């Protein structure tokens, strides 16, 4: 199953790109997409559970399921956020 991934701010800089495609098994959740992205871009690994996410331009939980063709955005912490997701 293929999804599109968008990276913002420092995540984009560390990965060296704003957009990528990612293949994950059917039944995957957003956190599985993140793991795959962090694996292919080790510089992102340090973010661990401090990223948040959106699916198709709407706020989503990392545990939410993904579907074929979804656009998943990963967001580094904002200036005055709260706690991590795990």
């Amino acid at each position, binding site marked *: 199953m293929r999804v599109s991934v968008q990276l913002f701010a*420092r995540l984009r800089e560390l990965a060296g790109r704003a957009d990528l495609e990612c293949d994950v098994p059917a039944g995957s959740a957003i956190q599985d997409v993140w793991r795959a992205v962090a694996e292919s871009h080790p510089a992102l690994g340090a973010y661990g559970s401090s990223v948040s996410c959106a699916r198709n331009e709407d706020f989503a939980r990392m545990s939410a399921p993904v579907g074929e063709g979804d656009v998943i*955005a990963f967001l580094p*912490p904002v*200036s005055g956020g709260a706690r991590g997701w795990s």
Partner: protein
Amino acid sequence: VPLADLSIAHEPLGVERVVAELERAAQREGEGCGGVCTFVGVVRATHKGRRVRHLEYEAFEPLALKAFARIREEIDGQWPGTLVAIHHRVGRLAVGDASVVIAAASAHRAAAFQVCRYAIERVKQIAPVWKHEFFDDGDAWVEGATADVDDADARRRALDVACA
């Protein structure tokens, strides 16, 4: 051109326009407009002792607008009859430039102050907008903690600060 009351702005923000727009809207509602409270976030010349040369703000625009709309809904639930405008600049900003303008209008001043404070606290907590600071000797992204729109504790903290 009338301003939308929520925006990500690529051009300089004008407080007077925002206020005039909001005041006009508030006059049409309920008891009318008795006060407008504004907050203007301004690019500071220093950060932790380092001299700031300029800033760059980046937003995930569609989601930022949804975050602003969410904040407006929260305000509508907590302070019925008040109005709020939220505008955040993106792109390159110089020291002294306005990065964010918030205006809150209400029939009575107490609610206007509370709404204005609540709105800026929530913007800082949940809006997908990132600040990149450039110094004479390097640069740094400003990152606090994870944005979570559903975090009830964060919302309560913003409410406590607004109503203190």
